[in-house]
């Protein structure tokens, strides 16, 4: 089953797999949202939107509609890249 960032629960981590959806802003790539990098969901705002993430050491918030475009693989344990 395919997972996206918006499927993460609070405190869960994943590895970014696919970011080829053209609606993903270039800015996210530049912030380190690239395949192979780790993403952690730190916090939700009310109504689960926006999402507060730690991507590759960058702390940032994105809206749910963007998070749904970024495919990930969930991980249980911390992996250092």
């Amino acid at each position, binding site marked *: 089953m395919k997972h996206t960032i918006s499927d993460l629960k609070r405190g869960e981590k994943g590895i970014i797999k696919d970011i080829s959806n053209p609606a993903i*802003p*270039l800015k996210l790539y*530049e912030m*380190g949202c690239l395949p192979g990098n780790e993403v952690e969901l730190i916090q939700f705002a009310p109504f689960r939107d*926006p999402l*507060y993430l730690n991507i590759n050491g960058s702390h940032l*918030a*994105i809206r749910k509609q*963007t998070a749904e475009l970024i495919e990930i693989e969930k991980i249980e344990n911390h992996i250092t890249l």
Partner: protein
Amino acid sequence: MSKQIKVALIGNPNTGKTSVFNALTGLNQKVGNYPGITVEKKEGICKLPRGIKAHILDLPGTYSLNATSLDENVVIELLLNKNDKDFPDVAVIVADVENLKRNLLLYTQIKDLEIPTILVVNMADRMERHGISLDIELLEAQLKTKIALVSSRKGTNIEHLKDLILNYKNLSTEPCVNASVIDQEYFDGLKKAFPNQSIYKLWLVITQDVNFVKLDRNLVKDTSSFSTKSRSDLKRMQQKETIVRYQFINNVLKETFKKDINAAKDLRSVLDRILMHKVYGFATFFFILLLIFQAIYSWSEVPTNLIENTFSFLAEWIKETLPSGAFTNLIAEGIIPGIGGIVIFIPQIAFLFLFISILEETGYMSRVVFLMDKIMRRFGLSGKSVVPLISGTACAIPAIMATRNIENWKERLITILVTPFTTCSARLPVYLIIISMVIPQGTILGLSYQALALMSLYILGFIMAVASAYILNKILRTKTRSFFVVEMPNYKIPLFKNIAITVFEKTKSFVLGAGKIILSLSIILWFLATNGPTDKFTNAEKIITEKYKDQNISKEELNKHTGAYQLENSYIGICGKTIEPIIRPLGYDWKIGIAIVSSFAAREVFVGTLATIYSVESDDENTIKNRMKSELMPDGTKVFNLASGISLLLFYAFAMQCMSTLAIVKKETNSWKWPSIQLISMTGFAYVVAFIAFQILK
């Protein structure tokens, strides 16, 4: 004048770039605008050793050279245009040691433009606490540059940075990353087509959003000699480029950057858990709002009164000291009150910017944006619209200036357009006097009718702001794509120097910018009120003396009647008479008409104007109120009754009658289009609502 070294200060947001700028230039800085756009241009002079000076240009913060906003566009336009007078001799890239990886992305891009580049690694004072160690020498070798490891907060190593700037000619201009590996064939074609151009520069020109970059695209128009790519292909290549750059950065940092992950976790996660919590987070935000309100309403009262008294004293003094005549009157009744009308805003504006800059410096603002975004988005606003809408209850002017933080132009424009609906402090004196006249005393469930009426007007303002945002969101079309990526910076203790400079600069920019317009309109209003076209105006004294000669009245009384008669026959009085047919259906007479016209200078003028017209003795509110209460229409009915009172309240709640706000909207949107739309639609709406209210209630 000796030649100055031109330095461009570039960096990601939240890297302490402004602190570095302040450390280099001190108070030798000025803030202006880039020609044609409202992006702030900050420049300053830095004294280097051996008597040489550097001109420092603090460019807007950007994450990369792929511009997504007007601010970021300034950076790329400058760096791609060698003929620009500000084109830097040397670029100084400011990076935050804790986010070095991400910060280096921009560095590698600028380096590839073959501009001499110095890397400043800032916030060195936080390294130890976060278990970070850096091999500077190796890093310098791999990045092909010189590095200054500074702490702009503590002021350490700034001298080293100055030395590096002084000796910029020794820096290598060799690129770090070869971007052409992402599609060798394509780039070979480019190279063949434009043998004299830097490949990376060409690539940037090709990939930038057409909406933004005004560069000479003819450069790459002739596509016969190389294959073109579709937009989505280009984006895929940009993605690939980003990966290539990060690969390079990862390799560099693997050897030079060590972080001990066992080092104690910082305050961040603890504070985030509270400040971004769905209950505590909102509670904290609410508390901070209360504090800001309190400051703006009560703390600024003392300085505001002081300014008011000083200016009225000054006007009196000039009237008494200078020989009487038109010139003295112009100074005492036009220019001084005009300047006073600007200066009076300073305490409120300064307090507001003090709080806003503290919230921004600490990193708290991003958390508010995060909390409020979803709620605000339902109305076409952004999480970032919260601050302006709150500030608007003090004064729309600083509130509109505060919208500059909103990157998305559409969300920013909507915020600017709806902010004037919130009940600003200038409406308060008008509301208070009318409510006390037309709303009956008495209570319901322990709350007085009058207090409820006042509260309803505040709520009405907010509802109108949000409702019109919703409508504008449906109407407005913009070409910019909307996205929301907000960095959550580390929490920091604000630096006094940074805040002081911000408050000073913003306040100054208001006083000089909007001030010019307020002052000139005040002078015009004064002229219109003190001059008249007919004999009736010039001979007012004679006519009035004639009229009252049989009655035994004091000289003072006579002067008052003369003043009232003069006003009636002045240009502005004629104006009031002329618009009377228009405002009659709303329940107003020509005197209220004059007050409305002069309210355009500032709403609070309403009370003062009526005071002059009704020629009462003092500005004491009760006296005016009693006089207003007994004012009768020609047909014998009272001027101020429930119907006309409500109609007037609604008119003031909705009408755009503040020229200072219009001036600032013009400044912020850089066009008369939006302030005109505001003026016409808000005032038109106010008219319709006031008309309906009066016709129903009368």
